[in-house]
């Protein structure tokens, strides 16, 4: 490991987080959040903003250098200082933690979370990029971007089609290219730092979301549960896009749910922007965004003043569509493909014919139950989830709890249904598709499942003194 490269990496990641944090402060409209929560959001939004700026430069036909990418943000920062908007940078005092000394249990939980965080960094940085998708779909494209000093003009029309799934959104390879740009060279060990940083950011956002309605000990218990799920830790270190998608989807729904409860505008903006970035990470981001949108529509119909609710809904949808739809334009104009779903041939016929694929259901259900009852990957989180669901079947569909409940049901159903949509050759079984991908898809909604468990425990007073 080159020392200069490592120093550049640390400084570059600091700058990336600072840009994201600046963005969070601007859209927060004066709303203060805890310091760590802002930094965690800052990393997630910052890495997306800076890596997707490669796309802006490609549209404009310009070369994205380190300085050019940062220049707009330097200008914004200077303007904020000149216009004396520096009060924007105040964070919320952490009144949350004025709950007395840390108990032995809390120390143990913090220790456990720290062990998992350190383990994820270690696993990510000890070996180079090696897993199939990491090499074939992301690392190759990232190398092309870095060697060309940006996205080559003919990248989407020709170059990307030499690699699998040309229709796969490009945020992860762009993020890797951004890391190479920061370091000034290729390094397929250090580039994987992106993923454990998403892990840390997710844990922090998750903790502070729970602190909105739980005491410190209870919030730490559920954060510990999330952090110690083996499959989550595994995917936080192998260079797949699934963990990044998990971060943006989790943040997207958590802030949407916060908005539903508190009506703070900036929560809605953060939710919409996170879900837009989810659409740039994987195709599944679009399905997850649609599920959130349906929940939002239901909320407006049931609980909000109609006109104002309609305006909020339109704002939410517009933010996501404006930020995410340039990718759809690129897919359409360059004729990009997805080898699994073959969306270039998707239409009403495919949706109708999916119902003739019901013979796949036994296999799909078998694989689902393998996930639910498999402690090696998930510990007992899904057993807890199902037990709480059955024991509180009426409660979970009442009040505000019905929204995360319905979202999880929608997402699980959507993912199950997606296996009916995959076109196969006659006689080809669905086994390989489901077996090799389902555990990855489960990661996307596992944090929200743990969040749901926390909400149910709170509602039922399981952790009350």
């Amino acid at each position, binding site marked *: 490991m080159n020392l200069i490269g490592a120093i550049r990496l640390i400084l570059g990641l600091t700058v990336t987080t600072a840009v994201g944090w600046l963005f969070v402060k601007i859209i927060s409209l004066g709303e203060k959040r805890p310091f760590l929560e802002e930094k965690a959001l800052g990393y997630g939004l910052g890495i997306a903003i800076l890596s997707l700026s490669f796309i802006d430069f490609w549209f404009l036909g310009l070369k994205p250098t380190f300085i050019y990418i940062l220049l707009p943000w330097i200008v914004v920062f200077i303007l904020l200082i000149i216009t004396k908007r520096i009060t924007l940078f105040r964070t919320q005092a952490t009144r949350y933690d004025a709950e007395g000394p840390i108990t032995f249990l809390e120390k143990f939980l913090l220790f456990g979370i720290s062990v998992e965080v350190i383990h994820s960094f270690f696993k990510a940085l*000890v070996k180079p990029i090696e897993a*199939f998708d990491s090499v074939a779909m992301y690392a190759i494209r990232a190398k092309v971007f870095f060697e060309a000093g940006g996205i080559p003009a003919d990248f989407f029309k020709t170059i990307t089609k*030499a*690699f699998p799934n040309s229709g796969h959104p490009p945020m992860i390879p762009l993020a890797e290219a951004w890391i190479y740009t920061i370091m000034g060279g290729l390094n*397929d060990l250090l580039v994987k730092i992106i993923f454990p940083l998403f892990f840390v950011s997710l844990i922090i956002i998750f903790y502070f979301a729970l602190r909105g309605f739980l005491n410190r000990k209870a919030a730490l*218990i559920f954060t510990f549960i999330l952090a110690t799920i083996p499959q989550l830790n595994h995917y936080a270190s192998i260079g797949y896009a699934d963990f990044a998608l998990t971060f943006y989807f989790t943040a997207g729904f958590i802030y949407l749910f916060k908005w539903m409860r508190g009506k703070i505008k900036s929560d809605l903006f953060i939710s919409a922007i996170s879900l837009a970035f989810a659409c740039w990470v994987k195709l599944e981001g679009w399905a997850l965004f649609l599920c959130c949108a349906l929940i939002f529509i239901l909320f407006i119909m049931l609980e909000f003043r109609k006109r104002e609710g309609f305006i909020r809904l339109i704002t939410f949808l517009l933010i996501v569509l404006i930020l995410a739809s340039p990718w759809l334009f690129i897919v359409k104009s360059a004729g990009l493909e997805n080898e699994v779903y073959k969306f270039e041939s998707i239409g009403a016929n495919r949706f109708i014919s999916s119902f003739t694929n019901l013979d796949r259901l036994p296999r799909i259900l078998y694989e689902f139950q393998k996930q639910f009852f498999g402690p090696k990957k998930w510990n007992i989180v899904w057993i807890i989830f199902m037990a709480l669901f059955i024991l509180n079947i009426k409660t979970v569909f009442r009040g505000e709890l019905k929204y995360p409940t319905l979202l999880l049901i929608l997402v699980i159903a959507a993912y199950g249904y997606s296996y009916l949509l995959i076109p196969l050759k006659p006689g080809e079984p669905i086994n390989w598709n489901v077996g090799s991908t389902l555990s990855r898809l489960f990661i996307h909604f596992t944090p929200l499942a743990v969040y749901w468990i926390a909400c149910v425990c709170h509602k039922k007073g*399981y*952790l009350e003194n």
Partner: protein
Amino acid sequence: MRKRIVYSVLAIWIFFWILFFARGLYKGNLRKYRALLSRSAEARISYIIGAEFHSFLKEAMDMMPKDATYRIASERKPIDRYRIIYYLYPRKISNEPDYNIYYKGGQYILRKL
């Protein structure tokens, strides 16, 4: 009563966490981590993808100019194809290649056409 159930479930969770963590280390992760930590960055790549394949890639990178084109006629396993493309880039795959890469007799062979 409910609180006792919650703490019991937490205890079960911690038990499984420690069990699978320790099992993972015992079943090979610890050996792999020790092997990786004792190697340089380049040697780690060799350890991960296989020493023979790694030395073939290095040989190919030395022999082929950066603007060379090649074809992969056959590969040992699908991921090798993409590792070849990744490590050899900016050399590109072409229908009218300068070089042919194929897998035969348990090794990769590079031939200038």
